[in-house]
């Protein structure tokens, strides 16, 4: 029989892991509006190019200036 403390710790860790997996990454502001101008839509017109670029730099680990893996994060904004 396993000690109760160990079981509880394992349960908490498992719950935290599920929670972090479900946590959406921050993503670009697709609905950005600046003083009535839908700037987000301007950027979104270039989503295919941006998507390809982010995939490239993320695959090669070349994204030091980003706070999150940019491709995974960017794709969430396109849903």
């Amino acid at each position, binding site marked *: 029989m396993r000690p109760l403390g160990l079981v509880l710790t394992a349960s908490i860790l498992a719950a935290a892991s599920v929670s972090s997996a479900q946590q959406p*990454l*921050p*993503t*670009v*502001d697709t609905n*950005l509006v*600046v*003083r*009535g*101008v839908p*700037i*987000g*839509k*301007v*950027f*979104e*017109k*270039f989503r295919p*190019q*941006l998507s*390809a*670029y982010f995939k*490239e*730099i993320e695959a090669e680990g*070349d994204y*030091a*200036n*980003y*706070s*999150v893996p*940019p491709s995974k*994060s*960017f794709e969430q904004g396109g849903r």
Partner: protein
Amino acid sequence: MRAPASTERRFAILAAAAAGLVAVCAFAQDGGTAGAVGAATGGSAPGGIFLQTRAPVLSPVKNLRYDSAARAIVTDDWTYVLPVPPARAAEIMKVIAKQDFLAADVSTVGDAALFGLTRNSEVANRMLIADLLLGDIAKGYGYFAPIYKTAEGYKPRQYNPIGRQQFAVFFVFVSQSWQIDAGRLTSKAGKLEVIQTPTIRQADGTRRFDFDALKKSVVDDAIAENARHILAHEDYYRRERAVRDMQSFADVAQLARELRQQSVDISGLVNP
């Protein structure tokens, strides 16, 4: 497709174009880098990425050839290893065969103005990416802000896109000088320039330089502050691949211009 213009409208467009051309020519004389951009693009789309070249300085080349295995341009005196994939170098050379610069601009309506570049080409797309990333910081829009780390956590000031005076920002990359070390030719990067220009929206949706505002040195304070930040942290922003690529493109463009000056057929030099 654009609707046929009426005769009156055609005359009005021609008159405006003629007046604009005079202004562009005058601006080109004393407008510094902005003047060079204005002259190159005929005063249109004064924003985005501008890859400038300078007057050629390389000595006459001997036995020039392209080594596809080494991805290098080789002469008796030096070897230049392409800093970009051969397909991109070939595209840049085809453009420089006809003009001295490369330019691409994302407009505020989401269209792309390309000067001599093929739409959806690798070079054009990468230039547009660089414009989107740098332009977002320079104008403080914040589209990428949730995922991008600005240098020292800087929060860009937001430009007002519906203010009385409109502005465009362009980012100028240039190769400053050549070095030959142990037979290898390399380029030293010039300092990045971030330049804002007052603009006027045209009836067809394109933007042109606002020469009256330029004469009065009208500037946007938010863009000026953001531009100062970018320039103060140039090394940081050059860590971005798209920005590094702009310098590499400018270096290849410079070499292309050098070789064109020496009557080399640069259009067919690099076979991807």
